């Protein structure tokens, strides 16, 4: 076998690494904007799905344009609140994009994005993002609330790599459907979040849904995620939702 000098080996490796580095950086820069758009588009799509919109996605020819259009039509406003429930000046969508970093901070220091949905009948709903840990990796989702900021209208969840058929079921309709109509505050206004009950929740339980058999750790992770993320909104929800909350009860 031919022998190569050490100098040759050094030069060879350096040139090789240089070529590879230039090539990859160039490609990453060229494709970066498109990839970013895909990620943003997915977030928008999930936000819309939590209020039952973007249902014609499969038929849409240009999915990105379709999602963009739906998002502009239905998501009338977005804002950011802090732990105390006061509005702060920040971009809700930008925070949603980096929700993983946001959730890793102490609850008092986090910023909490809210998306406002308004449909043709002027019904208003509020959508908040949630992010947490499953068994194998991150899980996340979007929960939409009715105007009382207490009753859940819908929820979508997704995951990076939960066990197929078990934990991965959190992104299926039957699991997400159970959240519809549940409430996160009790009659006295105390925060209850949503419990994911192993062995099945009592259908009359306003704060509980069925866990996934065999997917206990994912179910528990989802419960912890909801509690962790939604608890930061307590102050805001009480302030904002109190109007309707008080009206309902003063009759």
């Amino acid at each position, binding site marked *: 076998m031919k022998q190569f000098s050490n100098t*040759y*080996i050094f030069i060879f490796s350096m040139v*090789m690494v240089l070529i*590879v580095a230039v090539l990859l950086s160039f490609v990453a820069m060229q*494709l970066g904007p498109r*990839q970013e758009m*895909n990620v943003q588009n997915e977030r928008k799509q999930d936000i819309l799905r939590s209020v039952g919109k973007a249902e014609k996605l499969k038929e849409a020819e240009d999915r990105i344009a379709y999602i963009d259009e739906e998002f502009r039509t239905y998501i009338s406003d977005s804002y950011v609140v802090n732990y105390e429930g006061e509005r702060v000046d920040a971009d809700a969508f930008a925070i949603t994009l980096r929700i993983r970093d946001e959730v890793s901070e102490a609850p008092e220091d986090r910023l909490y994005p809210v998306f406002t949905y308004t449909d043709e009948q002027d019904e208003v709903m509020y959508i908040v993002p949630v992010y947490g840990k499953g068994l194998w990796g991150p899980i996340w989702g979007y929960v939409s609330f009715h105007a009382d900021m207490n009753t859940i209208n819908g929820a979508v969840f997704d995951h*990076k790599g939960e066990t*197929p058929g078990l934990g991965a079921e959190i992104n299926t309709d039957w699991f997400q459907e159970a959240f519809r109509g549940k409430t996160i505050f009790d009659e006295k206004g105390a925060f209850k979040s949503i419990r994911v009950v192993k062995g099945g929740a009592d259908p009359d339980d306003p704060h509980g849904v069925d866990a996934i058999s065999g997917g206990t750790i994912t179910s528990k992770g989802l419960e912890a995620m909801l509690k962790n993320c939604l608890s930061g909104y307590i102050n805001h929800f009480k302030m904002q939702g109190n109007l309707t909350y008080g009206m309902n009860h003063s009759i």
Partner: protein
Amino acid sequence: MNSDNEPLFSAKNLKLLKEPLGSSNPITVQVLGICSALAVTVKLKPSIVMAISVMAVLAVSNVVISLLRKRIPPRIRIIVQLVVIATMVILVDEILKAFAYEISKQLSVFVGLIITNCIIMGRLEAFAMGNKPWPSLLDGLGNAAGYGLILIIVAFFRELLGSGTILDYQVIPNSFYEFGYVNNGLMILPPMALIVVGIIIWIQRSRNKDLVENR
């Protein structure tokens, strides 16, 4: 490229393309690249994309290594091979993320893990390091096709029996379900991929006795 004026598709070259599909199949005969075969074969579509990705990576890496084979210092050849493979894989990953985002999400880490797919390192080390670019290209295409073929067969049965669909189109009529037919949830789990691969190996060996080890 062909200084000895060998025709491009000579019998010898065609063999490079055909053998990995059957008698020297990387998965069923050499039992390489099993882990990704288990992971991505729940549905047919990601399997097809995975097969195409591996084909692109293996064919190009084989050619690049073959072109450089006289200049690669033997002492760092494994590193050079890895760098070439890793570069190709990252390119494929970036392109999928930009143009096939949904599928790249389904394949998730497995595209990145093509780097560690033993078939690719194996072909670079065993073939491209000692052969000309054209045969190397054919060898790469052949082996990737052999890998992809098994992937697609396994995914076909897993999707059909596990989800009742082919390429996400429902093929098992609703009337079957009304009669009490249920999708086999076990097909979705990784162990069934092993069992399906096992059945393919069994069928292949009972038809081709040369593959059976002599005792």
